[in-house]
């Protein structure tokens, strides 16, 4: 594959710029997009960098169109992606649903902003429900929630591979803070790290006679009979459930003897990590659990962590009014550990907030 970054190097850049470099390194051939803060600079950097590497860009008339053009491009065998946020993410649910229905390797980067509606252009974690279970389907999606610029780089590359390997729409869920802030990271060519990129392939218009040389490519998003749809949805669900163990990712620290387990995701987990260290310094046995994949959710891993620790309480901290909390409750149904919450929709959470909450409930 074409060299983009060359030898791995240190960089100091915004999260949006990181997305662009990662997409280039992953071999993305085309981006379709429509401007919305805080993801604008993904488009901005892509339009500056892409022509240098023979990659393409099209700004569509809206987000619905941007999503559908990605659906079209991937069927033609192009590694394509889009990036959006907030109301743009809402509009893209229709094409994301098509990608679920037709098993299209669509990749989307979501930089969450405040909601509902136009909310703020700044930051939130309020697009968890939308990104994991949006659309009129069953949430057969792969959603990586990143916390650092290094992870944005790593998971954009991984996201393209997951999409093309498993053919479920794949999301890199960031936020306005991650989009806009600058921090150091290392950028690299995947090949240099021994990461083999899945080669894209056309899903339609294949060579040979149907029936004689190859099977029919039945990519369909509407069915005449309810039984037909039922069979397809059941088959997709079974396929999704089968690959869960291969996809699930999480992070766990200091949980073995923890009295309280703090669960958070994305950028909030940075504060949770610091809070756990500071609480431990003060003699409070706190533990840290972070789902990296929100879909599929590390259900068994969280159940095991709770069981092994014997923790008395769990604290869910998020910059939303209970979207991660809802996800966790549905996933670990039946567990009896009391769950407390620190819900701060649309604003940042720092270690102090978490520590104060922990001390108030222990």
């Amino acid at each position, binding site marked *: 594959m074409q060299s983009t970054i060359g030898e791995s190097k240190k960089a100091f850049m915004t999260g949006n710029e990181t997305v662009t470099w990662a997409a280039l390194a992953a071999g993305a051939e085309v981006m379709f997009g429509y401007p919305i803060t805080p993801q604008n600079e993904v488009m901005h950097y892509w339009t500056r960098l892409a022509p240098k590497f023979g990659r393409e860009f099209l700004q569509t008339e809206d987000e619905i169109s941007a999503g559908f053009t990605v659906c079209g491009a991937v069927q033609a065998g192009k590694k394509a992606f889009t990036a959006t946020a907030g109301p743009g993410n809402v509009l893209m649910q229709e094409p994301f649903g098509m990608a679920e229905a037709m098993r299209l390797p669509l990749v989307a980067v979501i930089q969450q902003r405040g909601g509902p509606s136009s909310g703020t*252009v700044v930051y939130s974690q309020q697009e968890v429900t939308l990104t994991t279970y949006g659309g009129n389907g069953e949430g057969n999606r792969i959603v990586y929630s990143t916390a650092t610029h290094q992870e944005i780089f790593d998971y954009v590359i991984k996201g393209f591979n997951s999409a093309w390997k498993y053919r479920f729409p794949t999301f890199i869920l960031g936020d306005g803070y*991650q989009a*806009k*802030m*600058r921090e150091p990271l290392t950028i690299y060519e995947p090949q240099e790290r021994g990461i083999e990129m899945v080669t894209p392939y056309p899903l339609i218009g294949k060579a040979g006679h149907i029936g004689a040389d190859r099977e029919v490519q039945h990519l369909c998003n509407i069915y005449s009979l309810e039984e037909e749809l039922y069979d397809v949805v059941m088959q997709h669900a079974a396929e999704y459930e089968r690959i869960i163990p291969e996809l699930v990712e999480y992070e766990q620290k200091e949980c073995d003897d923890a009295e309280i387990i703090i669960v958070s995701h994305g950028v909030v987990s940075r504060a949770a990590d610091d809070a756990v260290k500071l609480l431990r310094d003060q003699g409070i046995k706190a533990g840290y659990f972070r789902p990296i994949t929100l879909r599929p959710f590390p259900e068994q891993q969280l159940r095991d962590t709770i069981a092994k620790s014997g923790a008395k309480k769990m604290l869910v901290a998020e910059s939303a009014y209970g979207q991660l909390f809802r996800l966790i409750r549905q996933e670990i149904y039946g567990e009896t550990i009391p769950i407390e919450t620190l819900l701060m929709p649309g604003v940042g959470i720092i270690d102090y907030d978490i520590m104060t909450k922990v001390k108030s409930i222990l």
Partner: protein
Amino acid sequence: MSLIKIALAGEGGQGVQAIAEIMAEAAYNQNMQTIYIPNFGLEQRGGVSIAFLQFSDRRIGAPKFNKADVVIALSERAIGRTAGYSDENTIFMYDNSYPVPEAEFPEKAKKIVGLPAIETANNKLHPRVFNIIIMGAAIGLTKVVSFEAAKEALVHKLAYKFEKDPELRELNFKALQIGKEMAEASLQEGVGVRG
């Protein structure tokens, strides 16, 4: 070096984000862990613009913070907007080229320092290097980056302007130096120190 948190605030167009970016760049070039995040509102111009900066030799957690080690507020509105980031450990610096009503100042601060940056820029240098005086002052107050590293990052950022007008180079360096000296002097001698 332990974690140092700076909040820089001014009116849109005062160049707050530009100097935040240069300082972050300088720290990164010195192999420090650095996070810079602009607080951007819906307004494209006008409105108070805040830059949040964090410097450390260790990995930095959350990108924002509640209380800063140093707050630099460059307009009356910016003082009001950032007063909440100040507590008993905070050095709160503002531009005293214009009068500010008492009520705008933070209730808690380790020190409130007034620096006549706008006045100095207008009378001694050039209005356009006002923000560089502030950057010099920020470095003088915090020592987060060396003076040389700051100069280097400044040159890197403004290279294209310096090429067009070589006199700008010296003007900017002078502004940086004056800002740094004013801040250091105000800390030591208590010049312009309130509260």
